[in-house]
């Protein structure tokens, strides 16, 4: 009994022992990885590339949707006049519209000019010539003033224009923006699918690495079991190893993504300047970086958990 008492005194309180054990294992597993730098780095690189690909694509996609928001701001309203409106009436309306507070600029597209353009572009030149009179109305292209704080102004203006006497129809030209958004939506789904597949690949890579690790340390596991190590104690270093793989992989993925964006940035800025735009690529922000690394850590942990669950119970001392 005396022996048991002195043993009891020398032990830390259970909670402290637990904490100390975890910290010790956390650092020891890092040390273990650093003793096999080549194979550890390869695993980390595979994880990083698998994660950098979807996160890089997501960054590009985000940039594309920012860009489209910029274009959205240059939306144009086409005001179709009634067919019987004369050129004089059209000019009058144009002058009137230019005085509107909400309108930046307005331009008249004469119906003859519109017909000419139509016959040139559409290739229906002969058919158009066969027409007795011009079926097209005059159109005023209205450039609304954009106030980012008052997005409801444009629909309001649209309603006002529609109520003008000579106006047949005022239409906001957003079809192409909607199409672009639909395309971006598809791209985004595609990236999520690729990302999920690559996430599964990361799970398998970590799981396989941990499986090999377990096999290499079979002797150690047997001995530890023989001298009273619990399953949790034996499991812990492998889980932490998985965590470190995920953490390091996530960090490297962030680095790869940032580097790639950096490499593209110059060319994009050059291209943007040709369009008289100061547009710049934006990389991963703080929140996205934390999510990327956190997600990677989770994948590492889950991957090692699966491997440990499958392979650790197979090893029993004999």
């Amino acid at each position, binding site marked *: 009994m005396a*022996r048991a008492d002195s043993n009891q005194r*020398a*032990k830390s309180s259970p909670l402290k022992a*637990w904490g*100390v054990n975890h910290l010790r294992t956390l650092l020891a597993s890092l040390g273990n990885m650093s003793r096999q730098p080549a194979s550890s780095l390869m695993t980390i690189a595979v994880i990083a590339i698998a994660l950098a690909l979807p996160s890089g694509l997501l960054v590009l996609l985000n940039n594309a949707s920012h860009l489209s928001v910029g274009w959205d701001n240059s939306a144009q309203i086409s005001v179709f006049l009634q067919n019987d409106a004369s050129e004089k009436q059209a000019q009058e309306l144009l002058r009137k519209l230019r005085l509107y507070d909400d309108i930046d600029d307005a331009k008249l597209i004469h119906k003859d000019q519109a017909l000419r353009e139509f016959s040139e572009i559409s290739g229906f030149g002969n058919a158009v010539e066969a027409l007795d009179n011009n079926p097209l109305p005059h159109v005023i292209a209205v450039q609304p003033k954009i106030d980012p704080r008052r997005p409801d102004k444009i629909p309001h203006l649209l309603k006002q224009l529609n109520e003008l006497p000579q106006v047949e129809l005022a239409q906001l030209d957003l079809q192409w923006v909607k199409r672009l958004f639909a395309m971006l939506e598809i791209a985004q789904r595609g990236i999520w699918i690729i990302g999920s597949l690559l996430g599964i690949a990361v799970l398998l890579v970590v799981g396989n690495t941990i499986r090999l690790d377990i096999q290499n340390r079979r002797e150690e596991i047997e001995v530890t079991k*023989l*001298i*009273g190590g*619990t*399953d949790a104690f034996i499991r812990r270093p492998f889980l932490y190893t998985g965590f470190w793989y995920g953490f390091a992989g996530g960090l490297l993925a962030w680095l790869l993504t940032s580097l790639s964006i950096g490499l593209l940035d110059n060319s994009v800025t050059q291209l943007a300047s040709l369009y008289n735009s100061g547009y710049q690529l934006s990389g991963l922000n703080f929140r996205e970086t934390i999510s990327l690394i956190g997600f990677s850590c989770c994948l590492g942990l889950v991957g090692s958990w699966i491997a440990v669950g499958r392979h650790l119970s197979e090893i029993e001392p004999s």
Partner: protein
Amino acid sequence: MIRFDNVSKRYPGGHEALSNVSFHLPRGEMAYLTGHSGAGKSTLLKLIALIERPSRGNLLLDGINLSSVSNSKIPYVRRNIGIIFQNHHLLYDRPVFDNVALPLVIAGYQHREIGKRVRAALDQVGLLNKEKSMPITLSGGEQQRVGIARAIVHKPGLLLADEPTGNLDPELSRDIMELFARFNQVGVSVLIASHDLDLIQQMGSPVVSLSNGRLERDDLATGRVASGTGDADGQG
């Protein structure tokens, strides 16, 4: 400390390694387990260490019926046993100190306490100056003593040794056996499986002998002590 009560062990495939074995090793007692290879010595030790489970019969360790111990509780039973193997089972990727410290780390001892106890254990086996050496650089006898230091560092109530002198020359073997006798003198129960009958005769502790899985001789029950050094370590 150890009580076998009509214990049998049949392995899958029908081989019966132990048949109706009953014996009792009292607390603080030391005994040798002998028999030819295949007689069931290792199986008997494995049953005590819960590496195997008996097919029939009851096995009590320190008053606990081992058949009532669930798999998740096995580690806690093993922490009260120090096990020594013929092939040492040391971990060759870390120095002697870390090998010996392992049971204490598992049990959650404080850092300072670990250093103290590991050095005390190494001192007892005469390897205090080797704590930083890697096991592979040590001789066979030294490696076995590291294994013993690891088995006693957490002061278990029972020491089990499976052919601890199997690969050592006679003089080293005798040193190791005397080391076990010293631990026994401070109150540790000791059970040593060995086929080195000459050495056992010289040591003079009770002998439990197996033959084809059956108990052939039980000095613990008969009060007989191996001839040689008299009754110094006889029944208490």
